[in-house]
């Protein structure tokens, strides 16, 4: 980049699914489009790199989906997971638009595969990207490039010039220099702030030090912060996010999908004091996946241990790190640095409370405990077959929900009231409009694709008129 000033019709900030859908849509409307991505080329695409599927409503089964998934059903699922913390009109608008999304995104070169394996039974509701999220991104970048969209990598936006609710220019740090990029309209698609531990601490306190971030270290929320500081209306709760329990040995950032563990239902989960703290058999794992991050975050030192025995080892998806194993519970406690007696007592009491039943992890079975302060209500079996195994787990943050309020056109709203003139946002940065709480698999991609496309088209219309 030689010049230190650039101008374009539509400036897209970010480089993930939302950004690329916006860029392609804007370009197809005839606008000149520039994408500025904070990450180097290899890491382009933020958390989208780590995704696997996308949830869209559809009326009939397709080559890659096993059955119809109506708008009503999608809405019911969203309502259930968010417990009503969603903008109903906006959410329904998104769900209606999601129907067309499968075709549109396929036209942009993205390919899907039949759902072959895995533990999540999402074959009816979710479409799986062939080769995963990075393959999906590669296809979008290729299409954008062919259409003539310009992309700058290693180019984090560090400042925005906003004047009375109207965007003028952004400053990006490129090759060690500040470059001013003027544009007629802006699409902010720069993700959430989950990689910004200091910001997480504002909501979670010191506990956030022990959080692991599952995705990109680039989503620091800088653009979100600038927008909010410039009068854009915030939506969502800063402590609400998608958080799961992942292997405590995972890297601080970018460990992705392979550090997840889905063996909770097969054993017991104890904290640092070797005490159980929640019903591990409450519901099927895919439905409970997203609550354990929060549960572990509430425990001392934000760490917990999933403990199970030999008979369960092969019942769940393998994960990256091998479990820690020992021939006795005492030895396991020793290896985990847990109080030995306390763990022996917890396991002993648990074993004594297990009722006879026939184990079947594919249904709500009748294996349960009786008489414990915290019962395990399904799939409870004695931990008695050595070797015994354990996985240490920590909260793994997927993405945050605090964001910019938008309308159906994906246009940002002003805290003082009314819509901004030429500022749109899409994806994680406005996910809180739809997801006030909870999460349903694949909705992250829906939000990015649907609002990305709407934002891109809106931004292009504004710029070209």
């Amino acid at each position, binding site marked *: 980049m030689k010049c230190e000033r650039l101008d374009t019709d539509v400036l897209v900030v970010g480089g993930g699914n939302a950004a690329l859908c916006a860029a392609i849509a804007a370009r197809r409307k005839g606008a000149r489009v520039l994408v500025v991505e904070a990450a180097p080329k*290899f890491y382009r695409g933020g958390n989208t790199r780590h995704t*696997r599927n996308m949830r869209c409503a559809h009326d009939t089964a397709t080559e890659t989906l096993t059955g119809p998934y109506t708008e009503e059903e999608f809405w019911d699922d969203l309502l259930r997971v968010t417990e009503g913390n969603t903008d109903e009109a906006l959410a329904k608008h998104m769900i209606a638009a999601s129907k067309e999304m499968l075709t549109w995104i396929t036209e942009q070169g993205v390919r899907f595969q039949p759902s072959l394996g895995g533990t999540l039974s999402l074959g009816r509701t979710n479409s799986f990207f*062939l080769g995963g999220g990075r393959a999906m991104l590669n296809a979008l970048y290729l299409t954008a490039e062919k259409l003539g969209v310009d992309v700058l990598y290693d180019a984090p936006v560090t400042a925005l010039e906003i004047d009375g609710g109207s965007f003028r220019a952004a400053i990006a740090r490129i090759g060690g220099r500040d470059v001013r990029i003027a544009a007629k309209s802006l699409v902010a698609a720069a993700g959430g702030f989950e990689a910004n531990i200091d910001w997480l601490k504002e909501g979670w306190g010191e506990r956030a030090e022990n959080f692991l971030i599952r995705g990109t270290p680039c989503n620091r929320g800088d653009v979100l912060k600038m927008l909010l500081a410039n009068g854009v209306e915030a939506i969502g709760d800063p402590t609400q996010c998608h958080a799961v329990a992942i292997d405590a040995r995972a890297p601080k950032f970018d460990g992705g999908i392979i550090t997840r563990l889905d063996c909770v239902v097969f054993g017991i989960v104890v904290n640092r004091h070797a005490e159980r703290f929640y019903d591990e058999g409450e519901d099927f794992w895919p439905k409970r996946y997203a609550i354990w991050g929060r549960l572990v975050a509430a425990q001392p030192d934000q760490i917990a241990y999933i403990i199970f025995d030999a008979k369960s080892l092969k019942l769940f998806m393998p994960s990256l790190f091998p479990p820690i194993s020992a021939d006795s519970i005492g030895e396991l406690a020793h290896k985990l640095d847990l109080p030995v007696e306390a763990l022996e007592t917890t396991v002993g009491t648990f074993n004594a409370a297990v009722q006879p039943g026939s184990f079947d992890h594919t249904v709500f079975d009748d294996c349960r405990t009786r008489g414990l302060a915290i019962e395990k209500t399904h799939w409870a079996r004695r931990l008695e077959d050595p070797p015994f195994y354990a996985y240490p787990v920590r909260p793994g943050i997927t993405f945050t929900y605090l964001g910019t309020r938008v309308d159906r056109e994906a246009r940002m709203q002003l805290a003082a009231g009314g819509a901004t003139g030429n500022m749109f946002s899409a994806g994680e940065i406005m996910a809180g409009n739809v997801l006030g709480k909870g999460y349903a698999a694949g909705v992250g991609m829906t939000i990015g694709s649907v609002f990305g496309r709407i934002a891109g088209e809106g931004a292009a219309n504004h710029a070209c008129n």
Partner: protein
Amino acid sequence: MHATDHLNEADRLMTVCNSCRYCEGLCAVFPAMELRRSFADGDLNYLANLCHACGACYVDCQFSPPHEFQVNVPQTMAKVRTDSYRHYAWPKAFQPMFERNGLAIAIVAALSVAGFILGFALWHDPSVLTGTSGEFYRLMPHNVMAGLFGAVALYALLAIVMGFLNFWRDIGAGSVSAASGLSIWQAVKDVASLRYLDGGGVGCYNADEKPTDNRRLYHHLTFYGFLLCFAATSTGTIYHYVFDWPAPYGWTSLPKLFGIPGGIGLVVGPVGLFLAKLKRQDDLVDKAKFGMETAFLAMMFATGLTGLVLMVLRETSAMGIALAVHLGVVFALFLTMPYGKFVHGFYRFGALMLYAAERKADRPATVPTTAKA
């Protein structure tokens, strides 16, 4: 622990991939991997030979280098694959042929060509080399030619079969009856179309993240070119012995109809593959085996080219030399077949048969625990 570092790395990667599975739709390697939770040497050799090096799972992987998980399936599989050729080769005494393989094959080829030239000159008057246009069998009686090549071809076949059986046992193919008619038919279809060299549908990855399908095209030219040349030679032999029609054959005879397009395929295909190889990202290939792969392509190319040249020059005084060179090249090709890249086709075919059987049985093959790879 495994027998080699490459196997250890392959094991590490398969553990990563098995907990990810994003690539399961790309090729046969991932579904085959998913049937297993742990990987014996035989399993890894099987998976490595099931990989067609299309590169898709590298370009699509969120953990490929520089990510700290350093996931590079195509390169690791390429290394395990080439190690496996050496490991299974028969007889064991010839396994070192796989070290500095390009050089070894070049030497065998040069010696063979020289041997034929010298042989012709010593057998006859040296002048026959330049003076006997059109008549091969004055230089070398047909029975001698057929006997010599028949013997070397039989040896090559024996060595390849023995190597293949070593592989077959080590990957446990017998445990799921992988040699059934259905598995063979499925493998034939998969090999004939190079089904898994398509990067999951868009072509394979070469210089960058933009896929192209030209490696598949050039591979097809090479493969079918070879088969056509083989058919030309076979029909020629049948003409000679069964119908008593000695060469030369007319332009519309089967040996010519097979041989000419076959020769062209063997010239164009290897050149295309070689040029593609030069442009391929280093990350995707096993650079240490550049010599072996190049030697293989060179042998294919030389077989096709010298065959075509011989056909053009057969009525001229250069026929003697052209014949000696062609026969020398083909002789060397047969002799080195079991000890170079040529064997990849057989192992791949075997791996695809096993894959077809595993899919049908819906369970992994049982790898013999005693087999130490």
